[in-house]
């Protein structure tokens, strides 16, 4: 294991921040105005990405000890990481400026919002490309699927983070974007399909990487990481939020049934309380989003695995 939970935190926060920014930008087109939700999203975005980047800086021990070396970070433009540094920096600048404008002028230029949203997509995708470019060593890190998967996960975690806070501090704005509810049903399904595809493609790896590939898949499905994978990522991260979203849309009785069916833990939530169910679902998405990054890093075995 080369990278560990530190990098997973970074990948998670960067995705979360990116997703949050996109949501904030999208709130411009909300049917009902949702100014507080936008503010929440625009605060979360730079903070999450900045904290994630800080984690990265701390993890880069030699650079942390010799900070001047960070100025050489864009020396090699063949390196995905060099581009990542550029993307992160520009995104941080844009999102901070946008936030400042929002706080000072209560209004943001749409063009900046759009630019920021595009950069956010790049940030989210970059976290996948970063791993994908090391896929020659770790066959689980598939260049074709990981960026898409991480973008999808960024969207759901960003959304979940913003909605979580919104439900707490501005509950009246939480349902401002009806599309979000739809997204809450689509994204988990999409994410599960993408993970299944990732595992399927990895398992089908041939040649020198075959052993490491199948061992990585086995690690997740039945090996050392099977419990966090099935419980943390699949159940808590995808099925639970999906079921709760479904329940919230239907009758309270149906919600109860769905809850007891898929997750015993959620039964502790007071039945009929839509806000509580939403909070639990959003927390589940965040757990699942982190587990995804954590598992993709930790369960991956190198071609020369030990």
């Amino acid at each position, binding site marked *: 294991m*080369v*990278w560990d939970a530190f990098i997973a935190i970074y990948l998670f926060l960067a995705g979360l921040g990116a997703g949050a920014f996109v949501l904030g930008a999208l709130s411009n087109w909300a049917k009902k105005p949702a100014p507080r939700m936008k503010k929440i999203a625009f605060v979360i975005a730079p903070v999450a990405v900045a904290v994630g980047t800080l984690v*990265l800086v701390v*993890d*880069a*021990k*030699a*650079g*942390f*000890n*010799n900070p001047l*070396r*960070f100025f*050489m*970070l*864009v*020396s*090699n433009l*063949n*390196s*995905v*990481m*060099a581009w990542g*540094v550029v993307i992160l920096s520009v995104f941080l600048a844009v999102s901070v400026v946008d936030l400042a404008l929002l706080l000072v002028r209560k209004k943001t230029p749409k063009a900046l919002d759009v630019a920021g949203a595009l950069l956010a997509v790049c940030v989210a995708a970059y976290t996948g490309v*970063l*791993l994908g*470019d*090391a896929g*020659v*060593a*770790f066959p689980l890190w598939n260049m074709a699927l990981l960026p898409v998967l991480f973008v999808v996960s960024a969207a759901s975690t960003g959304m979940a983070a913003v909605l979580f806070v919104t439900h707490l501090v501005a509950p009246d704005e939480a349902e401002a974007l009806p599309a979000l509810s739809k997204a809450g049903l689509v994204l988990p399904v999409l994410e599960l399909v993408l993970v299944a595809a990732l595992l399927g493609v990895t398992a089908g790896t041939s*040649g*020198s*990487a075959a052993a490491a590939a199948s061992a990585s898949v086995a690690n997740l499905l039945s090996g050392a990481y099977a419990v966090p994978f099935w419980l943390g990522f699949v159940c808590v991260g995808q099925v639970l939020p999906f079921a709760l979203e479904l329940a919230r849309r239907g009758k309270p009785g149906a919600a109860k049934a769905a809850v007891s069916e898929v997750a015993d833990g959620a039964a502790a939530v007071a039945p009929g309380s839509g806000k509580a169910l939403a909070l639990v679902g959003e927390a589940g998405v965040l757990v699942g989003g982190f587990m995804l990054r954590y598992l993709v890093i930790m369960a991956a075995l*190198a*071609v*020369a*695995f*030990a």
Partner: protein
Amino acid sequence: MSEKKLGMLIDLSLCIGCNACTVACKRENDVSLGAFNTWIESFDVERPDGRIARANVPKQCNHCEDAPCVKVCPTNASYRADDGTVQIDQDKCIGCKYCMAACPYQVRYQLESGEVQKCTFCHHRTSVGLLPACVSTCVGYARTFGDLNDPESDISKRLAEAKGGEVLYEDLGLHPALRYIGLNETEAMPVASAIHRGGNVMRPYEG
């Protein structure tokens, strides 16, 4: 082509797994405890004639021509030197470990101070005309070192006899400068014990 390309050839039939190379390397390069620039993987195999033999496969940086570590390094700390080897400029390394993640051979490790290190082909020795420590100490003369682009070098001659030798993970297309003789033949034999790195279990025997 006059460009220099240093390489190493290891004849597995002559490697007795004594680990003198490992120790010489540790001493020569002051490799920290727990880390290895080179190591030997040893395991029992079933020969085609049914008898059991002990395989010893030395591993280290392959100094790939298309090195993923060089490609992914954001600061150019990892680079290809004029002699064709892959080196690390410690003063540029930020310790992001991207190179470690990108190396399919997993030969890199992080120092206590944060920088990444690996086999240099004993650059400090070879640049003054000496052999790498592992080569000069090798008991069975299993290791040969020299310029792959010089047809008169020992390694080129031995490689010519060995039809170019074999490389680890050839299908990854990284064109390593570390060549082997007998690698494919050895790997084709069923493994009949744990794989040991030195004397420590690297992969247990599943039976």
